[in-house]
């Protein structure tokens, strides 16, 4: 979303980004392990992106996600009190997730090269955190569409065209500020990415991306450390896009993990797919 968060003065941009991942491959540390519960999670997010360049070098952005999460597993006997004999157990949550509001300022520290986009904002706590299962028990926090806490976010982004190519890099962080009402506190997140894109054609563009994600452990009430949360990930992505018109971009990203070192056992996805589009117009 970093590259989508800038608009020139007097320009408005509206876009959508869709992301889907299918988590079904458990990893313990760096090693694959058996999926003994046959657990899997479908995680989809459609984000409405709004940017407004109101002042010179200043952009206001809003990211409004709609999330759908479906977790399924086959329970063992006695694993869930409400379903003693085991069998298929599903948990589902959907709705508008936490909205991110951000202000970005463009600096030009090296004249004409590597413009620096510095962003700061907040992630709101509007997403619902009380989705229930079919037995009216609240499902776990990491399957809820919201986090339940207002957190600061910061971002940094730069790019530079070199011939027919564009190199770009950025970082985004979310710092967890507090526990939600149920005592759960998400760990901090650091996203860093670098891109190499081909921009020589008026119609198509494409490229590759290296994406690093670092998350720290979540905590339960009174600071109890959560097992199976947090870790380091490196993803490699291939991208393909089209300039449908001068105002509209369409981009598809296929992302695959190349290195994962996760705390204890966590479900991972062998790939995820992202589709993004942006429409720019002037007031």
């Amino acid at each position, binding site marked *: 979303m970093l590259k989508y968060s800038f608009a020139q003065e007097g320009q408005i941009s509206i876009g959508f980004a869709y992301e889907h991942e299918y988590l079904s491959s458990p990893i*313990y540390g760096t*090693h694959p*392990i*058996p999926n*003994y*519960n*046959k657990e899997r999670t479908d995680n989809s997010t459609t984000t409405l992106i709004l940017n407004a360049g109101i002042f010179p070098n200043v952009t206001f952005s809003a990211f409004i996600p709609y999330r759908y999460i479906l977790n399924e597993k*086959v*329970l*063992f*006997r*006695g*694993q*869930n009190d409400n379903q*003693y004999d*085991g*069998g298929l157990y599903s948990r589902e949550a959907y709705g508008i997730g936490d909205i991110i509001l951000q202000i970005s300022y463009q600096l030009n520290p090296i004249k004409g090269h590597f413009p620096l986009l510095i962003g700061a904002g907040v992630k709101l706590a509007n997403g619902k955190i009380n989705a229930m299962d079919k037995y009216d028990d609240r499902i776990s926090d990491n399957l809820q569409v919201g986090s339940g806490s207002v957190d600061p976010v910061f971002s940094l982004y730069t790019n530079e065209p070199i011939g027919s190519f564009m190199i770009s890099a950025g970082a985004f*962080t979310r*710092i967890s500020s507090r526990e939600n009402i149920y005592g759960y506190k998400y*760990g*901090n997140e*650091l996203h860093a990415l670098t891109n190499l894109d081909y921009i020589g054609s008026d119609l198509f563009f494409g490229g590759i991306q290296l994406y690093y994600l*670092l998350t*720290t*452990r979540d905590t339960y009430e009174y*600071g*109890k*450390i*959560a*097992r199976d949360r*947090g870790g380091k990930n490196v993803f490699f992505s291939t991208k393909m896009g089209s300039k449908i018109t001068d105002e509209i971009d369409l981009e598809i990203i296929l992302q695959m993990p190349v290195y994962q070192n996760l*705390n*204890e*056992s966590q479900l991972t996805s062998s790939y995820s797919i992202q589709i993004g589009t942006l429409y720019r117009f002037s007031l």
Partner: protein
Amino acid sequence: MIKFIPIIFLLTASCALYEDNDQPNIYFEIHDFDILELGKTVSDIKLGSNSQYLYLSDYNNNSLLKINIQGKMELLDELILGSHPIAMDLSPDKTNLAVAMEGESKIYIISLADFSIAISFSISLMHMNDIVYVNSHRLLISSKTDPTVISYDLNTNIETSQSILNGELVVNQNDSIAYVASSSSVKKYDVSNNQASLEPYIADPYGFSATINHFIISPDKSILFLCLSNPDNYTGIKSVYAYDAETLTFSGQYKVNSSGMGVAVSNNNRIFVAPTDADKNGVFVVEFDAQTKLESNYYLVAGDLKERCIVIDQNTEYFYVLVNTPGDNNSFEPYNDYSFDLQRVHIYD
């Protein structure tokens, strides 16, 4: 340059935001499961001498399985027996295996040297339940429906009805003592003579009509371990009970939050309990410390566990359990469900 120092300091300090300095208590780890896929409904499991082979009675397929457990586990042989083998016991010299049938009134003695039926003979009991060697030539056999246990002498081929209540059987061959876990309590019998006599020690009744899942004696013959469940209240029993083998008084209670499916005790007195129910994190075999009687280790296993079906090798290196993995029961074969696989689990040092 000086004006960059605060920025560098801030960047360095902010790295602490992404460090997990506090670690959770790690009670269990997950490794690749070492599983031999069998797809069988196993009723009993015995470890052969030298921990080289496992013998499994395949209830649905009326057969006995011989599994190699040295190195990679593999099914070596299958021997067709009678209708629904239900229980087995190794002879004192570990050369023969006595197998009782639930579906017919017949006992099979298997020669382990060549894995063949040495002899078979009929007895008067129906719906047999358990079988044990009292000594090299005498067997005790119980049934689910006949009220009393019988003994069978392999030398004379004479069957004798005993005044022993039916239930799961355990024998201390050194002292010729038999223990019976019946549906109401644990009792102790002197079986040194042809006709067994009740010892004065009787454990207190459970207070309900129990189903006995597993009943064993520790290798040093001092403690009896009993896994029982209450069929009228599946969640009522949450522990495995231990009795002093001398006095039949309580010597421990090992809590696993559900009925015990099976229990095994190693030669160095490490106690492993296979519970009926899974924990929220999965199904665990729980190891208890014999001194403190508290949990010392948790071993994640691949599925629901089975009555009687846990054994430990002689060196306390591995234990073996039968597991039924959820989602693994999809089969086009009619009536083929609840099929179990054999899992080998490395015991923590």
